[in-house]
């Protein structure tokens, strides 16, 4: 019988590994504490204040969009839900996104755009020396830039998200060892129904900058913390992701060339870019009835 000269070494190593595995499982069992006293079977926390169980929650909220390219949206809204248990609730968050602030990028583009329009006015005759550059730029951007960039920017008009809320973590917080608060952490997956305003499809598009509203659907998930201030109210912070495709700048960026990755001088759905839309929400949560239950 021919044996590999390293057979012994391999065998020893394999046996060592096997013994190590056996040792690990034995050791991990020893980590469990088995109680024989009156605390056997007791929950991890007694007399837990059940802030959510069978209570209705109304939370006026303000949301701020993050990492916006052309304009930030401030969404005024509220979350309403009924908590069947301390860890499960069904409800919805919704809001109106009528407050918008342009980003520095929008301001920069508009400043250049305005300068071009001013220069263009003085160059009514395309044959005037020195006007060609400006006219060329004007022709290259006539599909993409209106007189005022802000007028063509897409935006979120409203959002409604039916959702389920799971609250897996419940705890407490000591601030500077002098302020103590009950807290919880929740996750809210749901369906986002979003009302958008975008640049209307066009072909040809030079000088065509009218807007149109549309509704789109998107998955959404929110992660949040509640800090209970008293028996019936809490301060809430929430992060929400709402990914969907839209044309935020109203630009022609795709639809032509290889893989439709080049402009085609039209505004179509091909110009909608997928964005992982994100926002932070601050809310003040009210719970009804105003008295909470306490666990055993």
């Amino acid at each position, binding site marked *: 019988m021919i044996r590999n000269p*390293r057979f012994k070494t391999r065998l020893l*190593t*394999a046996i*060592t*590994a096997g013994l*190590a*595995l056996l*040792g*690990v499982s034995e*050791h*991990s069992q*020893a*980590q*469990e*504490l*088995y*109680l*024989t*006293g*009156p*605390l*056997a079977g*007791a*929950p*991890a*926390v*007694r*007399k*837990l*204040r059940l802030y959510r169980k069978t209570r209705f929650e109304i939370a006026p909220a303000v949301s701020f969009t993050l*990492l*916006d*390219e052309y304009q930030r949206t401030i969404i005024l809204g509220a979350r309403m839900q009924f908590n069947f248990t301390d*860890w499960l609730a069904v409800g919805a968050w919704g809001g109106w996104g009528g407050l918008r602030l342009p980003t520095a*990028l929008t301001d*920069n*583009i508009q400043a*250049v*755009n305005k300068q071009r329009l001013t220069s263009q006015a003085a160059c009514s005759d395309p044959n005037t020396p020195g006007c060609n550059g400006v006219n060329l730029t004007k022709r*290259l*951007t006539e599909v993409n*830039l209106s007189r005022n*960039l802000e007028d063509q920017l897409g935006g979120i008009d409203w959002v409604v998200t039916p959702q389920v809320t799971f609250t*897996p*973590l*419940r*705890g*407490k*917080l*000591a*601030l500077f*060892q002098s302020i*103590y608060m009950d*807290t919880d*952490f929740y996750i809210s997956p749901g369906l986002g129904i979003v009302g958008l305003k975008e640049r209307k499809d066009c072909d040809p598009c030079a000088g065509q900058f009218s807007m149109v509203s549309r509704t789109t659907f998107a998955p959404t998930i929110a992660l949040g913390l509640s800090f209970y201030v008293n028996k019936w109210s809490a301060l809430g912070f929430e992060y929400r992701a709402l990914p969907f495709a839209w044309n935020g700048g109203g*630009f022609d*960026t795709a639809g032509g060339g290889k893989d439709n990755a080049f*402009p085609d001088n039209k505004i179509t759905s091909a110009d909608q*870019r997928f964005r992982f839309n994100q926002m932070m929400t601050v809310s003040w949560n009210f719970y009804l009835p105003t008295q909470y239950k306490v*666990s055993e």
Partner: protein
Amino acid sequence: MKKSCIGLLIAALGAIPTTGFAQVKVGAKAEAGATLDADAAGAEAGADAKAEGEGEGEGDASAAGEGDLGAEGEGVGDICKIDPAACPVLDMKKEAARPIKESIYAVQQLYVMRARRFEFNPWWNVKSLNDQFVQHTGPGIGINYYITNVLAIGANFRYYSPFNGDSKFNGQVRRAARVAVPLTEYEWGASLDFSYVFANGKFAGFGDFIFEYDAYVLGGVGALSTRPIAVIDPDNRNFEYKPKLAFDVGIGLRIFFTRWFALNVAVKDYGYPEKLESLTVHEVNPGDQSTWLSKSSSLTQNVELQTGFSIFVPFSFDYRLPK
């Protein structure tokens, strides 16, 4: 040999979490050969119950009640024999059922003591939170020494160079609007920081297990090596990295798996003066390097989301007072 080494590796990986957990699981059924002193266990679990501010462990009440009855029964009997007039008349059941109003702390004993321990904190910059044009991701490592339980001094180093991500969006805007936005990329960053733990807390997961966390703020000063990405005149311009003075502030959260190992998530803002690429190109001599940068500096903020781990050394510690 390779396969058996993999076996050993799996065994080692399996061993790490099982030996680390310091939280006890309460409520499992008793098994032969695995008994525990009921008073000790009661004290451990009772601490959690008391810490809720209202809870009084059932085990505490009953165990203490029985102990008191026995002890006082003998003592009272002796007094009554010596001097019957001084014999106290006590309904021991009633006394045992009386609510105890003792001082209760919201967090009775900190799960982790940090004083005079080092914290090694490797992380990954997951996302630049305020830069939609260039993402500055990359690895980083921080080392802190805790002077007290809440105050630490430390240093950290971040490496960005191969991980800067110029978004496709930039090119699309340049093409659509014929407007170029100056962009910047980073090489490395380093800073000296003070950090302060301002909050401690605990979470109960599904009412079954408990884990601890703390929150901290930090601030410091250091350097950030950056350079513009040539977008206005890429044919002629090529920038070198240069370190700049940078200030940083941040806030973070540590979730402890053991008394020496924690998940660490932080948001930090690095502010520094940046000279962006000049928006104008010198018509006569575009290669003149003195014309490549804008004349004035602008304060630039880079807000990063960092996710990593904290490893505290030494791994163990002693409490000054018993629980």
